[in-house]
């Protein structure tokens, strides 16, 4: 008989894996990995604010994530400093502020590790409702906007000229990314959220000929990694979230080696 905490951990991570696959593929196609990394780490500030004002953690994280995304979009308008440098600045600035705020508030560095890498074995029933409720909303929005999202991914200007309203599509995309980061936080933590999104998509790419197949295959890789990673975690008593991400990274590494060999051959 499997322990209930393990069932909840599996359910949470599999739910997230299914949502993360199409979203992570979109992040990869739009070269937004670093952008996602930055907003994900800024969510630590949201955690601090939630503890400080005793408000809902998920809501607080979504709001802070959106605020940082908006700030990034404003910063991207100036042309004297390249965007990756700004992302580097924001990413570390937000992480530093988040770490200081959370450790001052909670008074113990142990809690901080939980926020940074997740605490998948402490997932409660209520957390599961959040993950599945939020995940269903995110999936529904992605499914609904799939065609315009793909068109913007292929060529933003062409899509705009053809009448796809990128002023709607892009903010909605950032919103669902923020919600996903918020619901993923307890499972894998702010440092590993983006890996959970993009690594399965990377692993799927060499085997996919269409965008849909890549998204589905990414989901398969993610779910398999959850099962293998959690199994590994329980057996060798390793942290859950990092075990899943490590499994994903190994699968992605194998996939990339295969792609490189195929290219030469």
């Amino acid at each position, binding site marked *: 008989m499997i322990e209930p905490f393990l069932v909840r951990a599996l359910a949470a991570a599999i739910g997230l894996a299914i949502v993360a696959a199409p979203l992570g593929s979109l992040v*990869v*196609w739009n*070269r937004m990995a670093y952008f996602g990394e930055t907003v994900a780490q800024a969510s630590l500030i949201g955690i601090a604010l939630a503890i400080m004002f005793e408000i809902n953690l998920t809501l607080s994280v979504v709001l802070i994530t959106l605020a940082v995304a908006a700030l990034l979009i404003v910063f991207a308008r100036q042309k004297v400093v390249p965007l990756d440098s700004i992302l580097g600045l924001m990413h570390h600035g937000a992480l530093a502020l988040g770490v200081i705020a959370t450790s001052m508030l909670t008074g113990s560095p142990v809690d901080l590790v939980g926020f940074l890498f997740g605490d998948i074995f402490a997932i409660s029933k209520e957390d599961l409702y959040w993950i599945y409720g939020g995940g269903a909303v995110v999936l529904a929005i992605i499914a609904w906007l799939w*065609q*315009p999202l*793909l*068109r913007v*991914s*292929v*060529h933003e*200007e*062409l899509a*705009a*000229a*053809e009448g*796809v309203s990128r002023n709607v599509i892009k903010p909605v995309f950032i919103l669902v990314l923020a919600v996903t980061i918020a619901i993923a936080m307890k499972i894998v933590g702010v440092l590993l959220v983006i890996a959970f999104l993009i690594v399965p998509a990377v692993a799927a*790419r060499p085997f*996919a*000929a*269409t*965008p849909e*197949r*890549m998204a589905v295959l990414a989901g398969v890789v993610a779910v398999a990694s959850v099962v293998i990673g959690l199994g590994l975690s329980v057996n060798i008593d390793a942290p859950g979230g990092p075990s899943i991400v490590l499994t994903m990274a190994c699968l992605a590494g194998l996939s990339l080696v295969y792609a490189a060999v195929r290219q030469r051959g």
Partner: protein
Amino acid sequence: MSEPRGSAADGAGAGKGSQPPEHVHGPGCGTHDDGPQDFDPGALISGRGLRVARRGRTIISDIDIDIRPREIVTLIGPNGSGKTTLVRALLGLEPLDGGAIRRADGVRIGYVPQRFDVDRALPMTVERFLELGNGERKARIGDVLGEVGAVHVRSQQLGELSGGELQRVVLARALLGDPPLLVLDEPVRGVDYVGEAELYTLIGRLRDERGLGVLLVSHDLHVVMAASDRVICLNRHVCCSGVPETVAQHPEYVRLFGAETARAFGVYHHHHDHRHDLAGAPAPERRDGGLP
């Protein structure tokens, strides 16, 4: 481009009344400060007094432009002359700071953007790309690919295509919307010399067969001579416009393209400021080899 050049051109523009009128044809030349003009009723798209400024800097001003059915209009000018800004304004992608644009009723624009860099991270076949956003087009994909001479790439990945093949595929996507007007921004970028001539022949044929109006953007007049009905020479404002032979001899054009024009006609001179990936890598050598 350089400021002195721009301001000198403005000065010359103010004195344009002194230029021989027989060397200048078409609207948009020397008439825009005579007050507001009526839109050309026969045009697919018209712009009057168009002005776009960004951060206090004027990018284009006083632009009058008309494109009529079955007409190939080439927009030409040095890098930084505002060609792409004007095209984007006509497409509704760039907000205007002055002037107005009128599209004839129901005119859709088929757009082939300047740089179509396909990110290989996104797996997508040509067929899927062509039907993207409109599944009903699937039945006509074969015909349209035939029209642009790219039937053989139908099941290939976008990322595997050469520059010329990719241009044809993007052109095919534009044609699938049955647009009365086609806008191509620097369509020969990343295409080799032979491919370039073929592409212009294809555009001419599409105009004849479909009765399209075409707006082409180029930074070099020589190669597009044969294809164009009318050339508009742009350097933030309309320097001159008319049939290609006339524009080529126009003092403003000669001044803008002086060094290059002085060389033999038909020489292709390429300003290299773009990507070298995909099949574009060997292209510069082939181009150079084509120089006399």
